[in-house]
Each structure stands twice: as structure tokens, then as C-alpha cells.
């Protein structure tokens, strides 16, 4: 019962985080800040949702597979974000800056 509630909370929170990230890629002004939105929420959303599913599965092969999916996403997703950002920097894309360069706000 407690596990059920916990897993529901995780699933809903995961969905919420995912939507927040998706709104983020529309609200933020330039590529790098959008990367921040996708990069962080992708991992957290995957963590929460897969944790919720894992709690539902209990100790079984399904839970193992869920854990494997999570580990895979947890390693590859930030790597892809990093590679994307570094490719963007090297191709000459500059972060959008605000009025004062020293603060770096947008």
C-alpha cells in the first residue's frame, strides 16, 4: 500500500517534471538555456517514472529491466546532451547574452 502510493507519487511527479521540461524548451530564449531545460528534466523525469514503475514491479525480471533502462538513460542522456552542447559551441553558436555581458543573463 505504501509502495503503491509512493509509486503513484513518483509517476505523477515524473510526468509533471517531463511537462515542465517540455514547456521549458519553448519558454527559454536560446539553444543553451533550452539544453538546460531538456538535459535536467530528461534525467529526472526518467528517474521518477522508472522508479515508479520499478516499485510497481517489485523484485522481478521486469524490475531488473526497468533498472537497466534507467541505467542506460542515466548514462547516455547526459552524454548526448554534453556532446550536443559541445558540438554547438564548436560550430560557433554563441549563447544569447543579456544587456550586461558580465552577468550573462538573458
Amino acid at each position: 500500500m505504501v509502495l503503491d502510493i509512493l509509486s503513484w507519487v513518483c509517476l505523477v511527479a515524473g510526468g509533471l517534471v517531463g511537462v515542465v521540461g517540455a514547456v521549458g524548451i519553448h519558454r527559454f530564449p536560446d539553444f543553451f538555456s533550452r539544453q538546460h531545460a531538456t538535459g535536467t528534466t530528461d534525467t529526472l523525469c526518467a528517474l521518477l517514472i522508472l522508479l515508479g514503475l520499478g516499485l510497481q514491479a517489485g523484485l522481478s525480471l521486469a524490475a531488473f529491466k526497468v533498472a537497466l533502462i534507467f541505467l542506460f538513460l542515466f548514462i547516455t542522456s547526459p552524454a548526448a546532451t554534453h556532446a550536443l552542447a559541445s558540438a554547438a559551441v564548436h560550430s560557433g553558436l554563441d549563447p544569447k547574452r543579456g544587456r550586461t555581458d558580465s552577468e550573462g543573463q538573458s
Partner: protein
Amino acid sequence: MYAVAIVAILVTLSLALARALMGPTVFDRIAAINMFGTKTVLLIAVFSFLTGRLDLLDMALVYAMINFISVVAVLRLFSHKDFHSPAENNVISVKVRRRWF
């Protein structure tokens, strides 16, 4: 409750697809498409629990792998314009090889 997660993921998917179609730079598009792929993995995982067909989790795993490979491929081509050379200058590669092999 799975339904809530699925609806949330579908909303996320549609927003990511919109960014992929609008995205001013090509990197915006690739980032959105990468996000789309990750969320599809989650969609399949939740869907497999919703319907109780747990063998679908294999598919989610394949998706995660393939998504990573295609993002690496597109970035690789984008920063190199060809597929021959390694993604690194030699100094770093020698260092890494010593430590990991």
C-alpha cells in the same frame, strides 16, 4: 495512474515535436528529437505496465540504445563532415586507451 503519466508524456512529446519542427538552429532540432526519443522510451515502459505486457520493456531498451546511437551519428557527422576519422585528436585517444583497455 499510469494514464496520468502517459498523458503527461504525450503532452511532452507533442511539445518536443513542435520544437523539433520550429527550432531555429539545427541543434535545437536535434536536442528536441533526442528528448522525443527519451520520452518515447518512457512511454513504452509505462505502456507495458499499463497493459501488463512486460516483454515490451525489451523494446524500450532497444529504443534507448538506438536513440543514443543516432544522436551520436548525427553529431559526429555534423562536427566532422565525414565518417572516417576518429572523434578525437591523437593525444587524448592514447591517454584514454591506456587507462581503459
